[in-house]
């Protein structure tokens, strides 16, 4: 029992106690950003690793969460709903607050929408698509098209969304100054705790009867159907859960990083997260989380050194991981652990 939970407890202590004490504020902020991505990655790990649904549109859900949060922040800063206008609206010549924006002045509504909005879209899309037994590569292509459409929509509706620049210049969250180190440290702790709790909840889910059904759907959808279950329902629910996680991650991302824009949620960022999950190991939830943090760190580190080289490195990394180690870091470490155990037994 203790042994099973030891790895998670160790990581939790390091993340919650050691990191805020040891890291300087800038590095802690970066780590918080990677952890936000890790929440999205956890959702991908669930949908793709356990459920076999390769979703290339998680950026859409991440973005919906992010934009919900950003709208709330912009409204509080502009003087509450119905009061002043957010800065970018003034620049685009919008004269009164659009009706779509009004309810986002309420933090409960904004946070609720950040999670429920993506879940609702995923439920609708999942129902339409999975009921018709559209799956595998087809599903991947459709989610990718959704991401592409979303970016064009956000860029085009300049007055509503801030266009290409998105929204930035957030100053306070719930009365706390976002520029303060203490606020950022608090945010980091919130992000890390949310990730930890979601990880535990997802692990519980995967180990439940529902989780077994999900894996069964991945490995033999028709057999599951012949046994009397409804695979479309199982997949839709899972897809919605992963969308909700991405939405929540987006909502946390905005105050941590201080910007949300179409460039953060299009086809490329969505794919990057999927690749991070693949690098970490899609079959293990911990691998997905690890992959997101490692890839996020690698991207920052290499981009700091040589900006263009990163793309070559990233490309080469995918090619190597896919051909040589399709199970990712988690797969490699598991096979090493297995070999060690084997060696000890003989």
């Amino acid at each position: 029992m203790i042994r099973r939970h030891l790895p998670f407890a160790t990581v939790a202590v390091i993340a919650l106690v050691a990191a805020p004490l040891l890291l300087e504020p800038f590095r802690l902020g970066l780590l918080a950003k990677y952890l936000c991505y890790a929440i999205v990655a956890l959702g991908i790990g669930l949908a793709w690793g356990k459920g076999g649904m390769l979703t290339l549109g998680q950026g859409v859900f991440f973005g919906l969460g992010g934009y919900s949060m950003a709208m709330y922040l912009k409204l509080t800063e502009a003087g509450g709903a119905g009061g002043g206008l957010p800065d970018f609206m003034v620049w685009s010549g919008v004269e009164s607050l659009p009706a779509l924006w009004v309810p986002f002045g309420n933090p409960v509504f904004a946070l609720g929408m950040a999670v429920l909005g993506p879940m609702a879209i995923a439920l609708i899309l999942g129902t339409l698509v999975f009921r018709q037994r559209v799956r595998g590569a087809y599903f991947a292509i459709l989610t990718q098209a959704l991401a592409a459409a979303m970016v064009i929509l956000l860029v085009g509706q300049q007055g509503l969304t801030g266009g290409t620049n998105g929204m930035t210049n957030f100053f306070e969250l719930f009365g706390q100054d976002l520029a303060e180190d203490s606020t950022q440290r608090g945010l980091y702790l919130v992000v890390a705790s949310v990730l930890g709790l979601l990880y535990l909840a997802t692990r519980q889910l995967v180990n439940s009867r529902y989780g077994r059904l999900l894996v069964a759907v991945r490995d033999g959808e028709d057999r599951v159907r012949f046994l009397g279950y409804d695979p479309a329902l199982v997949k839709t629910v899972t897809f919605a859960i992963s969308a909700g996680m991405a939405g929540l991650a987006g909502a946390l991302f905005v105050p941590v990083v201080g910007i949300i824009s179409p460039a953060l949620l299009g086809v490329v960022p969505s794919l990057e997260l999927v690749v991070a999950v693949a690098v970490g190991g899609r079959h293990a939830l911990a691998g997905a989380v690890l992959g997101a943090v490692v890839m996020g760190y690698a991207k920052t580190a290499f981009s700091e050194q040589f900006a263009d080289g990163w793309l070559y490195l990233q490309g080469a990394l995918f090619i190597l991981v896919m051909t040589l180690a399709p199970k990712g870091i988690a797969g490699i470490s598991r096979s090493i652990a297995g070999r060690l155990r084997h060696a000890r037994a003989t």
Partner: protein
Amino acid sequence: MTAFVNQLPIGLSIGAVLLLIALGLTFTFGQMGVINMAHGSFIMAGAYTAYLLQDLVLALPAAFLVAGAMGLVLERLAIRHLYGRPLDTLLLTWGVSLVLQQLARDLFGAPNVQVSAPSWLSGGVGILPYNRLFIMGLAVAGVVGVWFYLTRTGLGRRTQAVVQNRQLAATSGIDTGRIDMLTFFIGSGLAGVAGVAVTLIGPVGPALGDYYIVDAFLVVVAGGLGQLRGAVLAALGLGLLNSYAEFWSDASLAKVIVFAVIIAFLQIRPQGMFVLRSRALT
């Protein structure tokens, strides 16, 4: 009404470009189950070939060979090892396209470049500009060529056999590996030709392929795997839908409308317009 008519050549020529791109995709996808994200880079390679040569007539065969050769190398070196794992190939080929895009940026610079169209393509008949007409002609030639290859040559018939049932084809003595190589070569080559075509209607940049690749995949989904008829109808439909949706609503809503239409279409025909009948459980 005039606006409606004026929009027609734009929609048709976009459809023609999508068709040239989707022809390659639908066969690599239908035959090998490979989702080739690097296909977009082959379009780009074709476009830069046209930029280097600055001669349309020379560029067409050259782009076909350049892009085809790139496809062949990719198939032999990487994709071959991943058959049966379509989602992994998707990610792998995306990695390849990242590298190729950055390579293009380093070789030709990040800003867009222009290919000068030959003088005999300026002007037009009525509302049909010659350059758009030329693109449509190219697509027609591509379709006729592929159709001829598939139905009238031995290699093409063998290709169809592999699409329909790989194991059975292999047991009948068809060298499926060679057919795969050939399909990849032709499909990638057509992407190169599409790349030359798009230089006639827009500037050339390293991310050129990204603009078309998502729509081209939608063509494959809507048309049905490995189906020539499906690809033709879906490409034209999508091209027209795109240009009219852009015209009637605004450009930012067009893609959302197209997406909604595709999802609605899949409710009626989940496997696309035309389906290869089989009794296999997929």
